């Protein structure tokens, strides 16, 4: 099967970017919008075509999906055997990601035409979107660690540019810097991990590294550091990078601030695609994570995921900025995916977690994008992010209301929605392999349902509010994506994922167990019910509860002061003390000593000027004395 055409999936977006970027002040906004949408439509079409061709028409090797290369070329050589390639790797997860990215990106493009209408940087915005799409596509089809790192960084930059899109808002600038620097810091770990992996694994290529019989996996115990295999260290460091991108605790701090960006951007980058790159990375390296040192690194992944999902869910309860609530729920859901991977095994049905995680990634992309876009259309309508300013909007914007409701149900795992199926598999996987995590997951499921419907009710129901100008439903360009995604966030549940994306590439059939499902659903429903009880009509229960929690509530409300901690470390310790003292040291000590040498010489020459006294007889003394001293030296000293 020939997949070389897939190169266009990368070429089209970058061309669009260059086109819009270079002529950003010559192209009319409307035109540029259409250019972007058309380009993305083609890309999406290509990805779907690829998916169908791969999953249904490509023969399997002894029952397993094979790895195909759309294109692969040498990019740079480090040594004879260590080199960076550039290429397009096609296997189930990469193709699934292609579909996700292109779909969401297309929807966001369409949506933005309405949302960004009349903005002076309209063209620039679409240029950046195309850049991001290019980078993300390149990331998912990467054939080796270095390629993934390269596009990883590009993704980070485009995220930086898009968060800082409203660059005249200081808060936006700060958020952009924060996002870039935090992820950059995480990528430091990633890079070191890659370098270690390259040295000990002998290659950067996924095909070689992930081969269960390959050298990298076979002799992972060859060299160790502090009791752990160096390979394990490399994996952990790489996971650090993944955690940074996927906003896992404790590197999550940039995600809430990233909501300063335009809402479509939040939907595309910070909900659906870029933030799951970490999950994708772990899935991509799954065989290594699983086989090296009996999956030690994998346990770390599992627990980091679990803790993050729990903390995020708790924080989400207390936030009022709707986008931040969604941001924390994103973090919590990604935690789900991580822990699912973490508890997964490799072969056949054992690899349920892996499959579930990928599935949840898929469905989550759909409904989270939906929720964000919905939130966007709400903000578009009433120009505020805070739920205090909202209420009873269901009359004004019915479409938004319905689609948002579907999204909320789906994320809360309401039966027969997409979220229900994927989340159920995760719970099942957790239940099979790791009980404590299972209970955390269950609890988080309840919390999720609660805060989502807290959000839902306080936006669309609750108190009647008087808006100075009545909110109106958004234009079609915004409504269509909402409806499409709403459809997807139900339909995605009926795709038979276990026949496409599995850990060992082999198909297995999931047997649906009703007990687990029942427990999960009941938890979810109780959460929803509680939210209904609290927020359907304005009540004073929330205040009561929050005061009851007291200190804990304020801590949660301030996101456990993690931001402040980071700020203290960076601003005070590193900037003020360390680099400040270094700068001082350089100006005064190092440079001072250099200047000192010069000044000392000059002052010394001032000191000795008296020797040239102008008195002839002093000269004569020097003359005769010098001569005789020389005589003494040569005769007696030497």
């Amino acid at each position, binding site marked *: 099967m020939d997949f070389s055409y897939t190169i266009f999936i990368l070429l089209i977006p970058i061309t669009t970017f260059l086109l819009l970027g270079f002529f950003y002040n010559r192209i009319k906004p409307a035109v540029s919008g259409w250019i972007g949408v058309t380009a993305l439509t083609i890309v999406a079409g290509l990805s779907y075509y690829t998916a169908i061709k791969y999953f249904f028409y490509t023969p399997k090797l002894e029952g397993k999906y094979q790895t195909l290369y759309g294109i692969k070329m040498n990019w740079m050589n480090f040594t004879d055997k260590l080199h960076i390639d550039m290429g397009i790797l096609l296997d189930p997860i990469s193709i699934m990601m292609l579909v996700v990215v292109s779909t969401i990106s297309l929807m966001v493009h369409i949506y933005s035409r309405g949302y960004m209408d009349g903005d002076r940087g309209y063209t620039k915005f679409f240029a950046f979107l195309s850049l991001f799409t290019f980078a993300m596509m390149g990331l998912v089809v990467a054939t080796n660690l270095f390629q993934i790192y390269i596009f990883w960084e590009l993704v980070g930059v485009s995220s930086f540019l898009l968060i800082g899109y409203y660059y005249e808002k200081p808060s936006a600038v700060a958020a952009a810097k924060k996002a870039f620097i935090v992820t950059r810091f995480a990528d430091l770990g990633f890079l070191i991990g890659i370098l270690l992996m390259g040295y000990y694994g002998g290659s950067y290529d996924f095909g070689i590294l992930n081969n269960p019989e390959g050298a990298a996996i076979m002799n992972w115990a060859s060299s160790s550091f502090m009791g752990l295999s160096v390979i394990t260290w490399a994996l952990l460091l790489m996971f650090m990078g993944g955690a940074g991108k996927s906003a896992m605790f404790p590197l999550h701090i940039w995600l809430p601030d990233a909501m300063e960006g335009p809402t479509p951007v939040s939907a595309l980058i910070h909900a659906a695609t870029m933030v799951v790159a970490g999950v994708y990375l772990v899935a991509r390296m799954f065989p290594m994570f699983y086989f090296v040192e009996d999956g030690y690194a994998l346990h770390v992944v599992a627990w980091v995921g679990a803790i993050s999902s729990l903390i995020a869910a708790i924080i989400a309860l207390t936030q009022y900025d709707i986008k931040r609530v969604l941001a924390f729920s994103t973090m919590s859901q990604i935690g789900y995916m991580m822990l699912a991977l973490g508890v997964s095994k490799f072969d056949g049905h054992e690899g349920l977690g892996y499959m579930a995680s990928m599935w949840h990634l898929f469905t989550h992309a759909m409904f989270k994008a939906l929720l964000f876009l919905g939130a966007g259309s709400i903000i578009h309508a009433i120009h505020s992010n805070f739920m205090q300013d909202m209420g009873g909007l269901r009359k004004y914007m019915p479409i938004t209301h319905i689609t948002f409701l579907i999204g909320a149900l789906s994320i809360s795992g309401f039966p027969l929605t997409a979220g229900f199926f994927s989340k159920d598999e995760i719970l099942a996987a957790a239940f099979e392999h790791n009980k404590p995590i299972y209970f955390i997951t269950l609890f988080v499921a309840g919390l999720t349902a609660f805060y989502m419907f807290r959000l839902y009710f306080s936006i669309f129901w609750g108190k009647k509010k008087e808006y100075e100008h009545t909110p109106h439903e958004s234009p079609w360009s915004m409504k269509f994506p909402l409806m499409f995604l709403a459809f997807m966030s139900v339909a995605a549940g009926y795709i038979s994922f276990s026949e496409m994306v599995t850990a060992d590439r082999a198909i297995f059939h999931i047997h649906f167990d009703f007990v687990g499902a029942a427990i999960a659903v009941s938890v979810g429903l109780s959460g929803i019910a509680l939210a209904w009880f609290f927020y359907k009509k304005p009540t004073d229960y929330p205040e009561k509860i929050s005061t009851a929690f007291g200190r804990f509530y304020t801590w949660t409300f301030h996101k456990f002061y993690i931001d402040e901690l980071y700020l203290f470390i960076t601003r005070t310790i590193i900037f003020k003390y360390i680099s400040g003292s270094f700068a001082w040291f350089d100006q005064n000590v190092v440079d001072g000593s250099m200047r000192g040498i010069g000044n000392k010489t000059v002052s010394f020459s001032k000191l000795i*000027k*008296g020797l*040239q*006294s*102008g*008195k*002839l*007889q002093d000269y*004569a*003394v020097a003359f*005769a004395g010098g001569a005789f001293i020389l005589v003494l030296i040569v005769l007696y000293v030497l």
Partner: protein
Amino acid sequence: MIENISIYELLTVSTILFFIGLYGFLTRKNLIAMMMAIELLLNAAVINFVVINKYLFPDMLQGVYFSIFIIAVAAAETALAISIIINLYRLKTSVAITETETMKY
């Protein structure tokens, strides 16, 4: 070859003369006196040449000739020095060495 006077006495004399001259040069404040001191120094050298010639290498007269030249040159030197000193006297009405300390450092 002078009777019962060995070379050592004579060389001692010249050496003493040399150091007297040096002392004089370093201490006198009057330029004329300093010139005299210079003459003493030169004479010490002259004596050396003559004595060494006479006692050590009597077969050739190099030292003696040399001493004659030294005397001649010394005369020229003195003449020049005196003329400059007179010039200084014209300008300053003084021949003290202290008049020549304006340029220093």
